[in-house]
């Protein structure tokens, strides 16, 4: 029987990216600044993780203006929602098994 860690999505399985997707799964769309505050990471780190998820097709990035201030909005795509839900289930299954092997994606 294959260990559940083989089902982990390497594009999501970085702590910051997983938390980012959890934050986006909890809302329709969120501003970059709000996400940085929630995740307590630097702008450059968040941008880096954002790009990975966008390239995977999991996150939509939209730029706009509020008044004169540029804003960046992120939201999960349907594929991103499905991928996050599956990853959450897999992690929960691993966490529920105290004898689980390490979760590095190999």
């Amino acid at each position, binding site marked *: 029987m294959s260990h559940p860690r083989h089902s982990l999505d390497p594009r999501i399985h970085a702590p910051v990216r997983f938390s980012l997707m959890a934050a986006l799964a909890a809302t329709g769309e969120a501003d970059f600044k709000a996400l940085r505050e929630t995740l307590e990471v630097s702008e450059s780190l968040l941008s880096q993780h954002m790009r990975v998820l966008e390239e995977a097709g999991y996150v939509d990035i939209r730029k706009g203006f509020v008044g004169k201030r540029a804003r960046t909005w992120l939201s999960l795509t349907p594929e991103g929602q499905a991928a996050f839900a599956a990853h959450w289930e897999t992690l929960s299954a691993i*966490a529920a098994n105290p004898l689980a092997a390490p979760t590095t994606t190999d």
Partner: protein
Amino acid sequence: MIEDDDPREMLARAERAGDDVRRRGAWYPPMMVGFGLVTIIIIGALPAVRGTWDGLLFTLAVVVGAGLLYRWKSRQEIRPASRAHTWRWVAAWAILYAVAVAWVGPVVLGDRMDLWLLMGTVVALPAFAEAARAGRRNRR
């Protein structure tokens, strides 16, 4: 020492992130309920203000209020509704509003304010449904 990629720690951090975002989006359901109630009031008041100077002031107040609300909403950093969700309920509300105000009200209801209020409740349903959807999501 718990590693960064420990599944329990990752799930706990993700849960906290989701909770924080849900808390910051808690403004949305009450706003949608308020929008629905204002819809009911506006439609209920229409028989009394149509074709009068009071009607012009009433319309002006509604437009200014809508503008202020839009300005405040656009400054919120967490938006519980995606653009697709927003367009869906706005389209439903707009169609109901147009049919109610342009046809059902003047042709069928006359000056019966009680019936206009009832019609206003029907028009407000998309807004209340959106409030319920967002409220359920916030409670998860």
